[in-house]
């Protein structure tokens, strides 16, 4: 019973973190049918930026985090404009190759600049404690992940449902041609969505650094994980992504609790089984 | 009931291909609404209807590219409703595409070769050269000559004019030696100067082949069809001989009215 509760709580924490990082991926894939293997790069860069701003530049924690997130979102704009958008119309393989190229470059550069070891994220006093729930002691950083994760989901939901940008975004996900025929500037929507996704990933990378340590191989280590969230949740589907993220977070946590020796094996088996049984996602329509 | 004993062969030969109560919805949009269609061997039927009526969707449904919401599809007495798309083709149910779908980076000959290899079940020959495949080149030759595209044999498909590509599209379906052929607007997008070739090819189809032709050109429809079905909003609105359809008031209003 205790284990079950542990799995449930830690699984939700991990799942919400996966959601934050992967949601940008699901949006850009839904928008432009663009396969991005490099999305984890933004999470890693977010982490490095925050560490640098807080440790080296001596910024207070919160402003440091906010500036880091905004900086990564800003950096992603020229990347999308000049590099990524050039392969939107190309076959999936070209997109895969280009984004692997980006991953390799960023892994290498991070290794050269920050060293190959884990860089630890500074956290303020009030986030280093923990909360005793009675049946479980929850580190404050996990509470941070949960609150930021839930806030992100609600915020994104409101953005998509209630704002003009959200309507344009959903119309573009639905059908790019129709959307641009309706006068929506789909290029701009794509760029903004890309920046939004990059910023979300950066935020996830920062608040989740206790669970997923910031190091140069970060984008490669978690590549399958982020992609799997999208594949399970369905491309361009916000709620689906949340469910996919929670499911995978739960599975990963469960394997770590129940069979720590075999956890990565069991996790990959689970991913393979789920995706090969439902290649179009849990909620996906059948391939036409 | 006694007829069953006396003429057991009646049922299979009477209908080569029959579609019973076929329906399909995309969300709220009904694109196929309780469609019944029956083709006897050698049938020449035309399926007409305004753009967006659901004609191509009907072809996608019966050939297995889309899954119907309900209904039954029967080929030669066998229920093929849940059969895989490729097995339907091997069983003789073949379609052409409204928008040409060819192997664009392969030569015309290789395109036809593929269809012939499937029809002759020779594609599992792993190490023998194409030139050494018995009967393959002769058959490809025959089809190239039949459609008069022999001099384009070694061109890559994407270098052909669209009209020529339409001929290759027809060559592919003929190479499959179908029992039932569904032609989805074979002359669509072809300049008038080249459409004669296609009409000729359609006119020369084997006599025992059951053909369903989707077409907008009424002259062609009336010269070709023995039976016409009119599809409007996914439902068959009328069926009959060309005369009956030509005199059907509703059809004239809804459909023929525009052109005549």
């Amino acid at each position, binding site marked *: 019973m205790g284990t079950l509760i542990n799995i449930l709580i830690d699984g939700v924490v991990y799942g919400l973190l996966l959601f934050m990082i992967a949601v940008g991926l699901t949006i850009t894939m839904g928008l432009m049918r663009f396969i991005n293997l490099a999305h984890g790069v933004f999470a890693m860069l977010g982490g490095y930026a925050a560490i640098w701003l807080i440790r080296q530049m001596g910024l207070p924690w919160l402003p440091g985090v906010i500036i880091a997130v905004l900086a990564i979102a800003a950096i992603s704009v020229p990347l999308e404009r000049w590099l990524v958008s050039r392969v939107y119309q190309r076959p999936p393989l070209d997109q895969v190759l280009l984004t692997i190229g980006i991953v390799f470059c960023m892994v290498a550069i991070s290794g050269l600049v920050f060293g190959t070891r884990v860089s630890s994220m500074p956290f303020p006093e009030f986030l280093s404690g923990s909360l005793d729930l009675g049946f479980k002691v929850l580190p404050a950083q996990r509470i941070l992940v949960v609150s930021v994760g839930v806030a992100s989901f609600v915020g994104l939901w409101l953005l998509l449902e209630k704002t003009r940008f959200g309507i344009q975004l959903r119309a573009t996900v639905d059908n790019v041609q129709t959307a641009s025929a309706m006068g929506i500037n789909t290029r701009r929507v794509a760029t903004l969505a890309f920046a939004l996704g990059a910023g979300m990933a950066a935020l996830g990378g920062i608040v989740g650094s206790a669970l997923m340590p910031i190091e140069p191989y970060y984008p490669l280590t978690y590549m399958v994980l982020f992609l799997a969230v999208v594949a399970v949740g369905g491309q361009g589907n916000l709620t689906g992504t949340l469910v996919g993220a929670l499911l995978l977070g739960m599975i990963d946590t469960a394997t770590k609790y129940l069979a720590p020796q075999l956890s990565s094996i069991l996790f990959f088996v689970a*991913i393979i089984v789920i995706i090969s049984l439902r290649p179009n996602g849990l909620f996906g329509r059948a391939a036409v | 009931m006694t007829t069953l004993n006396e003429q057991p062969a009646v049922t299979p030969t009477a209908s080569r291909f029959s579609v019973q109560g076929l329906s399909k919805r995309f969300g709220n949009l009904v694109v196929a609404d309780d469609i019944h269609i029956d083709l006897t061997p050698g049938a020449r039927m035309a399926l007409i209807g305004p753009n967006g009526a659901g004609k191509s969707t009907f072809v996608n449904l019966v050939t297995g590219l889309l899954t119907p919401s309900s209904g039954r599809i029967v080929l030669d007495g066998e229920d093929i409703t849940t059969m895989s798309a490729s097995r339907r083709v091997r069983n003789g149910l073949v379609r052409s595409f409204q928008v040409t779908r*060819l192997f664009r980076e392969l030569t015309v000959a290789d395109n036809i070769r593929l269809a012939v290899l499937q029809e002759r079940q020779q594609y599992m020959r792993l190490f023998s050269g194409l030139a050494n495949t018995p009967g393959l080149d002769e058959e490809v030759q025959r089809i190239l000559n039949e459609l008069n595209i022999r001099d384009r044999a070694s061109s890559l498909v994407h270098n052909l004019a669209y009209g020529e590509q339409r001929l290759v599209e027809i060559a592919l379906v003929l190479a499959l030696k179908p029992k039932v052929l569904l032609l989805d607007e074979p002359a669509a997008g072809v300049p008038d100067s080249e459409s004669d070739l296609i009409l000729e090819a359609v006119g020369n189809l084997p006599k025992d082949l059951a053909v369903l032709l989707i077409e907008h050109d009424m002259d062609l429809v009336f010269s070709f069809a023995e039976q016409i079905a009119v599809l409007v909003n996914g439902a068959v609105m009328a069926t009959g001989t060309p005369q009956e359809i030509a005199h059907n008031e509703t059809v004239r209003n809804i459909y023929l009215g525009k052109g005549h």
Partner: protein
Amino acid sequence: MTQTTVKPSLALGTLHTGRLPIPELIALVVGLGCFFAFPSNLGFMTEIVIMILLVLSLDLLLGYTGIASLGQAAMFGGGAYCAGLFALHIHNDPLLGLIMAALFGGLMAGVSGLLFLRAHGLSFIILTIAFGSLTFAVANQLNWLTGGDDGLYGYIMAPLFGAFEFDFFGRTGFLYSLGILLVVFYGLRRLVNSPFGLSAQGIREDRQRMTSLGFPVYRVMLMIYIIAGAIAGIAGALSAQTIQVVGLQSLSFTMSAEALVMLILGGTGRLYGAVIGTVVFMVVHHYAADLDPSTWMLVIGLMLIAVVLFLPKGMVQLVDMTRNKVSRLNGGAGHDNSK
């Protein structure tokens, strides 16, 4: 096109080549030339030969059938471990080990392909990456069997054909690998020019159209996946047998990705493209050996980006461009065969 009596299939406009082993003879001459010219680099040249085999298997998948896999290292490493373990525990005859590895690679591909080949696009790519990660995790977990991080070693190969010892300089190893490469290359060339090979290309061009022609596309793809897996297994076995160590990196994502880089660099859909790409990549890697791993990774990354942006058809594109230029200079019409 004139109606003279050329070979019937040429008259019918196929662009496939004949069955004479001329490319293999050229490769043999080049290979032997290198053998005598660079006697101190035989180990490195053996590595190139092995990578060519792995990249060829990927070309069969990607270049000829349009199956984009990022997990071909699973079969490569699987074959390597299989050959190593076979030599260590059962029998150390190289050819017997090679056959076992081919079977094992084919089996791994068969089992995984059965599950994966129903998926498309993103899902298929993720599945292949996940399969690679899974095999890596399994090999790591079974360290009592595989040696884990330390690698699998301690086996000594029996002489090839019972006569040729695997010598310290790697002469036997190189000639053995070269021989296997030539055999596989010849087989592949026959395969891609066969009815089956044409069907593969049809699948690459348009899977759904192949279905509408009545092809059992899934079954054909599965067969190709198995054949490619067997070839990757052979490559892995050669690596295990000539280096006499098998490491976890043979199963790594980097291995799969590098093989893909070599293929893309050379150009897909032509067997010699795989050869060119591998040789160029490996030679550059060799001379960049002084670079630390991070810098090398940066080089690969930049290479990938550059190829996608500027040379989407690989280096064979350069060959074509020069060829067209030459034929234009000679006053000949630029031919339209892009194959």
